[in-house]
């Protein structure tokens, strides 16, 4: 029998176009997503060299970072943002790429619309000039972020020059308790392995807790793999994966579908496959998680307190002190005492329909606390439409949430949605770096339910209080 292989090995081996003696490989790229920020120079490079896009139908372009999330009909005020978006539209047209403009119902955050359209499929290689491309690994596809030169390389050749990554497995045991979600699970993992824990590896998430997650939840987990230092996350495809994809616009149909499912079913890692690194975690007893600092590894249970920098060793102690100073927090204070100003619900981490259902379930029949601005930004036009069909927007509007148009929004504050200096935000996004949501802004990463609970309380709060 041949050597047992991991899911990663199988995808890698089936994409090698050419292997050089020095170990460098040319690998084929099945899917390429493009947004307006990291692509203009790549297209310009093609033009200057007189090159075409090799397989335009394997690329999908959409503006997301710079688009306004309100009054879209009024266009984009900021000139540089507007030019970046217009440039993408022109490039898509000139090079014949499928493109969803900001008035298209299918427009949304690249990592939300890929799966939604059935563009993302198991066993594929998927890239985008964006680090959160890792999201698509939830389907059992090898998905990772690339730089602008590589974007151009993919457009021109549909390949990339790469060396294989190492295999790492994170085994997640136990069943998540009520009120504890995929977001809490991935925050707990990053808290455990650290932001460099996955460096040089592709992380495969396995175990009962992962199998139990919906596809939405699996996307949330893979999305933040990059915050754990790995370029890509992977979850083996199963019946849930196939059920999610079946009938999606760009997914295979009929005979092709049957063949695809038969192949996808061979992808899960073989018993006895070798992993360079293995980590185990039991989530049966974890409370909801929240970040207190300016690195995604600065994680604590909501039932806990702000840690003391002295509880860390080496360079991390200084970093923790710097984080607390920036965040305006004191060691020892209960996290549920931390007052907030804003709430941001959305992003490619938590901007899907299931996330909005979670928020509505908590918000129903309550009111957003005085003085709190709580934004809800659906991940795509289709997510927004679905939510409205289910009447979720009514529940949210009634409770005092701000219901907006799809895009990246305050996940990185490249459009008009920003925190002011020292404003504090409970956010469902993925990065709490200094200034990420606006200069001087303070970010606490939480699950959608936790963000909703914070909006109602006006402080960081334990969502489980609202679920009794």
């Amino acid at each position, binding site marked *: 029998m041949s050597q047992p292989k991991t899911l990663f090995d199988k995808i890698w081996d089936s994409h090698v*176009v050419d292997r050089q003696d020095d170990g460098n490989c040319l690998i084929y790229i099945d899917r390429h997503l493009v947004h307006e920020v990291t692509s203009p120079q790549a297209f310009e490079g093609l033009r200057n060299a007189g090159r075409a896009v090799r397989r335009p*139908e394997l690329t999908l372009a959409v503006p997301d970072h710079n688009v306004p999330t309100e009054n879209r009909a009024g266009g984009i005020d900021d000139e540089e943002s507007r030019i970046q978006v217009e440039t993408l539209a022109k490039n898509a047209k000139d090079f014949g790429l499928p493109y969803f403009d900001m008035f298209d119902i299918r427009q949304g955050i690249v990592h939300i619309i890929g799966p939604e359209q059935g563009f993302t499929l198991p066993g594929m290689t998927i890239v985008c000039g964006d680090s959160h491309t890792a999201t698509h690994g939830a389907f059992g596809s090898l998905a990772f972020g690339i730089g602008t030169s590589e974007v151009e390389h993919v457009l021109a050749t549909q390949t990339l020059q790469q060396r294989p990554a190492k295999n790492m497995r994170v085994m997640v045991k136990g069943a998540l308790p009520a009120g504890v979600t995929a977001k809490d699970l991935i925050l707990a993992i990053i808290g455990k392995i650290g932001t460099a824990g996955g460096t040089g590896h592709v992380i495969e998430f396995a175990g009962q807790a992962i199998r139990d997650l919906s596809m939405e939840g699996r996307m949330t987990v893979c999305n933040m793999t990059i915050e754990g230092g790995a370029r890509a996350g992977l979850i083996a495809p199963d019946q849930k994966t196939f059920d999610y994809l079946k009938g999606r616009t760009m997914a295979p149909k009929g005979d*092709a579908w049957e063949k695809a499912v038969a192949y996808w079913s061979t992808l899960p890692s073989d018993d006895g496959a070798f992993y360079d690194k293995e980590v185990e975690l039991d989530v049966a007893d974890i409370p909801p998680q929240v970040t207190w600092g300016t690195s995604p590894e600065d994680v604590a249970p909501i039932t806990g307190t702000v840690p003391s920098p002295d509880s860390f060793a080496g360079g991390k102690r200084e970093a923790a002190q710097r984080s607390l100073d920036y965040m305006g927090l004191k060691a020892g204070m209960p996290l549920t005492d931390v007052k907030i100003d804003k709430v941001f619900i959305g992003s490619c981490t938590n901007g899907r329909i299931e996330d909005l259902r979670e928020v509505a379930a908590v918000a129903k029949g309550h009111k957003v606390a005085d003085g709190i601005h709580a934004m809800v930004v659906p991940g795509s036009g289709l997510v927004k439409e679905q939510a409205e069909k289910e009447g979720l927007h009514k529940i949210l509007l009634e409770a005092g949430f701000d219901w907006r148009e799809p895009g990246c929004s305050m996940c990185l504050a490249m459009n008009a949605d920003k925190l002011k200096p020292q404003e504090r935000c409970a956010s469902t996004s993925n990065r709490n770096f200094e200034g990420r949501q606006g200069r001087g802004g303070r970010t606490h990463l939480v699950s959608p339910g936790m963000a909703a609970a914070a909006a109602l309380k006006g402080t960081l709060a334990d969502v489980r209080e609202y679920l009794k």
Partner: protein
Amino acid sequence: MKPFKELTGIAAPMDLINIDTDMIIPKQFLKTIQRSGLGKNLFDEMRYNDDGSEKADFVLNREPYRHASILVAGDNFGCGSSREHAPWALEDFGIRCVIAPSFADIFHNNCFKNGILPIRLPEETVNALMEKADRGQNAMFTVDLERQVVVDPDGVEISFEVDPFRKHCLLNGLDDIGLTLQKGGAIDGYEAARAETAPWVTPDAA
């Protein structure tokens, strides 16, 4: 990528160590949608006054150095961030070769991706070239990559080292994309085989 074979041109002296990528192209120009057009902002803060007028004493604002195609600079050129905008700006201005005692790693790499030849020479040699570059109209250098020599204004030849693979790429104007395109046959073959075994890879139209 433009091939780099032999270059004859004016060499501008920049007797400064640690010229970083922020000096080469300040961050306010990174929001551009283009790779070209950055030449006018090359060394922006050293080159222009606040009102946008030129600083008369900056070397690239003086004749004949406005037309320089070679820079002779101090140690650790190109340190700082990884921005590919730095070589983009140099190239757009017309600089195709930088001679210095040492370069920052990432910048050094980025140069080769953009048709620029970075040449490392011992500090004394660079100092001697710096003086010769200071001679105005007579600061004409020739850089011959094939023979791996710099010919200074006095006709003195100085040889330099360069990685053979990178030399091959520069001489032939091969960027990564160019190289990959040489494997076009393998890509065609892969695609044809894949269309048989995994026909679903081609998506149904959106």
